């Protein structure tokens, strides 16, 4: 069975600075997808970024980028130029490319606070 681990329950960053959130996963599969979701205090789950395992190039979305290390099974999220609105819970998630119903397997989450 696949597992996802986020080892940082809480992180803090100064506004305008850069922060990296860590995520590791365990799988025996070679084809899968990885996601970072953001959950602000409103509780809404918002997709931040997605990475296909077959792609070597790291995904980027504006100020958000990932460092995908397939061999190390690591998938970290870098937030550049942090803004107050980035304060939220961040979840890393794994999705198999096999026909397993497309379910997401989540990490425990990292709560990010942004200091003005």
């Amino acid at each position, binding site marked *: 069975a696949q597992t996802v681990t986020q080892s940082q329950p809480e992180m803090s960053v100064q506004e305008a600075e850069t922060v990296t959130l860590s995520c590791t996963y365990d799988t025996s599969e070679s084809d899968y997808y990885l996601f970072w979701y953001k959950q602000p205090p409103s*509780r809404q*789950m918002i*997709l931040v970024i997605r990475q296909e395992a077959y792609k070597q190039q790291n995904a980027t979305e504006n100020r958000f980028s990932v460092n995908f290390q397939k061999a190390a099974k690591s998938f970290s999220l870098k937030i550049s130029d942090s803004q107050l609105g980035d304060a939220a819970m961040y979840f890393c998630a794994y999705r198999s490319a096999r026909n397993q119903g497309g379910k*997401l397997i989540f990490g425990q989450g990292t709560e990010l606070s942004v200091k003005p």
Partner: protein
Amino acid sequence: DAGITQSPRHKVTETGTPVTLRCHQTENHRYMYWYRQDPGHGLRLIHYSYGVKDTDKGEVSDGYSVSRSKTEDFLLTLESATSSQTSVYFCAISESNQGREQYFGPGTRLTVT
């Protein structure tokens, strides 16, 4: 925003009572999911559906049942609520079981006293 609604948004109920949560989508997506969110656990899959009347269990399915009689509706039932089922419940939808993202509903906070 994906058209997903959940009802009710908040509910307080007593131990032993049945509870049904509803997820409604307007996107005509084939796949629908129920997750629960608890501190320290992230989100965990309860049940999912891959079509009308087609459902399967997830990681934490004990004490829960689901039904999907129409594409747009996915119901989660707690037959006899227990305090351990106090949680926030999220519905999600997806076009496919591959790399497309899942879109989440706003969540339902359920408290079992």
